[in-house]
């Protein structure tokens, strides 16, 4: 009875804490500017099912895709078992869903096999990161916390799966003794091999079973509350992020409406000049981004497929699209805390540009869309880079001098080079 009460308290506390942190993230995302991503729901649903649920883009790299698929399917399916664990915890029952009989045995058996594949995949992931030292998992922007974060996640998953398997093993041994309360239920293709490792006495077995049970469920609840401060949030946000994907061709960049009004007035003096000041052209800080850019930042799991495909990064330039996303999230968290503390945003003398992202990074981009194409959850680092360029050029007139020359030529003679417009058709003559 005490353990049931204790469990109820832990469960409610974990859910409340998660709710609090999740709403903070929601509020931060709401700091972004509006953009319409609610049209065409059927195509959006299809994109989400293919890209997030179906993991379509992961398979550009088959080996990590397969390992990731094991962990992903394991995560989704084993969560079904969570229903039973929560009910057992609250009502002190033992394997409450076992009345399903054969189906139950099948489910438990598949959970076990999945738990084992998750465990093996996570081990391989740890080896890839820390021993094989894959380049994309060891680049500069991952130094310190991001690398630790990744290892914590993998170790946590290994521990959770181990606890799950040992819980089953102890349960199985208790069932076979037999012991009171532990009525035979379930099929245990993996944990049957752990049984020999366990002690013989009922009290020790119950201790192991209870410890593993508590470790597993408290671990899962702790893991859930770790998500909001971790890169691992993608397991939830991948779904909305792909639903709200850009559905236009990748080459289409949005036209700024505020500029359209001014340009129209310039070309046709009979039109009234646009009313109302534009607060800012382009992106200086995270509040100038759209909510989708901010959702992108929280969704990024720092896999680095974008950076591995970025022509600038491949050839040793400072630009890394992954870092653009990580910087955006870091700055957004900082701004969010600033607002929490001061009720409203108080200028802290910092901004996304310069304090986080350097000019050298944004000017190295070729706008080739390789990063956008590679992202398995449809994040768009290019939009952020372009927004920062717009700020640098339109608000500050700070651009590489050769870019200013090119723009000057465009304005004077309608070509990026210094050739007279009158000579444009000279090629027809010779």
């Amino acid at each position, binding site marked *: 009875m005490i353990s049931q009460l204790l469990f109820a308290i832990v469960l409610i506390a974990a859910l409340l804490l998660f709710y609090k942190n999740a709403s903070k993230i929601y509020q931060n995302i709401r700091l972004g500017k509006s953009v319409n991503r609610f049209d065409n729901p059927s195509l959006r649903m299809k994109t989400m099912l293919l890209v997030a649920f179906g993991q379509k883009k992961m398979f550009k790299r088959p080996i990590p895709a397969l390992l990731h698929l094991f962990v992903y399917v394991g995560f989704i399916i084993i969560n079904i078992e969570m229903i039973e664990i929560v009910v057992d915890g609250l009502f002190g029952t033992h394997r409450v869903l076992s009345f399903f009989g054969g189906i139950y045995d099948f489910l438990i058996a598949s959970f076990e096999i999945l738990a084992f594949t998750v465990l093996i995949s996570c081990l391989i992931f740890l080896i890839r990161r820390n021993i094989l030292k894959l380049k994309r998992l060891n680049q500069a922007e991952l130094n310190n916390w991001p690398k630790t974060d990744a290892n914590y996640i993998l170790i946590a998953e290994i521990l959770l799966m181990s606890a799950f398997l040992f819980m089953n093993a102890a349960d199985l041994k208790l069932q076979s003794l037999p012991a009171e309360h532990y009525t035979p239920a379930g099929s245990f293709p993996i944990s049957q091999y752990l049984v020999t490792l366990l002690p013989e006495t009922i009290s020790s077995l119950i201790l192991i079973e209870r410890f593993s049970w508590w470790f597993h469920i408290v671990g899962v609840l702790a893991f859930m509350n770790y998500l909001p401060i971790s890169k691992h949030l993608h397991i939830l946000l991948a779904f909305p992020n792909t639903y709200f994907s850009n559905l236009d061709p990748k080459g289409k960049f949005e036209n700024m409406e505020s500029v359209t009004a001014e340009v129209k007035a310039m070309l046709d003096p009979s039109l009234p000049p646009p009313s109302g000041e534009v607060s800012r052209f382009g992106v200086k800080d995270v509040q100038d981004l759209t909510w989708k850019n901010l959702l992108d930042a929280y969704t990024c799991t720092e896999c680095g497929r974008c950076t591995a495909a970025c022509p600038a990064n491949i*050839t040793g330039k400072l630009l890394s699209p992954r870092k653009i996303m990580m910087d955006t999230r870091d700055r957004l968290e900082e701004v969010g805390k600033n607002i929490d503390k001061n009720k409203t945003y108080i200028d802290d003398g910092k901004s996304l540009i310069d304090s986080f992202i350097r000019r050298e990074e944004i000017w190295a981009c070729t*706008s080739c*869309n390789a990063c956008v194409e590679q992202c398995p959850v449809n994040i768009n680092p290019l939009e952020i880079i372009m927004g920062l360029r*717009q700020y640098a050029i339109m608000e500050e007139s700070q651009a590489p001098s050769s*870019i200013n020359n090119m723009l000057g030529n465009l304005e004077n003679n309608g070509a990026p080079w210094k050739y007279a417009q*009158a000579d444009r*058709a000279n090629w*027809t003559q010779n």
Partner: protein
Amino acid sequence: MENNLHIPTVAELLANGESPALLFWVGCAGSFDERAKRITRDICKILHHVGIKFAILGTEESCTGDPAKRAGNEFVFQMQAMMNIQVLDGYEIKKIVTACPHCFNTLKNEYPSLGGHYEVIHHTQLIQSLIDEGKLKPSDGNEFKGKKITYHDPCYLGRANEVYEAPRKVLEALDADLVELKRCRSNGLCCGAGGAQMFKEPESGKKDINVERIEDVIESNANIVAAACPFCMTMLRDGVKVKEKEQEIQVLDIAEITVRANKL
């Protein structure tokens, strides 16, 4: 080219009470860059050969504004776009073919919300449809037969607009030995010119992007790398020069290959 092939402007046609079925948007590179001008003339040869009634804007054409937009100057971009739309709409232009994926992308995707609505195709799409219609047919003994040819996807044609097949279909008609680069189609590597990089020095790094790309070409053992963008053309040719492979590797536009294969 045939020295006296006359390229009419839309204004000229209009003066005779005519209008073009297709506007050929030449683009800045195609108008001024020596290498790209040869591609421009080849596209005209193709259009002329198949009898499409086309015209150019001539001195009334101006940059689409693409480099300004990618550099972040929305004012200069929209100014260029609006002025071009005024000219295009003034002539009631309906259909445009471009020689440059950047012009193609901008006209097709970014002009509509500013009021410019046209059917825009890239010259590789036009050539492919002409082959499909039987209007172009590489001659049996064409010079590309059996040659090892690869294709470099321009970002603004490929990833940006998902035109992957048309240029490949044109090459398939040659009866050549086609090979893919290790990074191709949606995984293609940029030549290094996009996003206004063409007009500035690269940031410091360990290598230039076009050199990285030409290494893919060298690895493919192709003798010819087909391009479909004047900026890729410049970048790839510079890469070939850096690697001193001028004797082994030729960079040719899809239009040039078509003209030679059809002996136009």
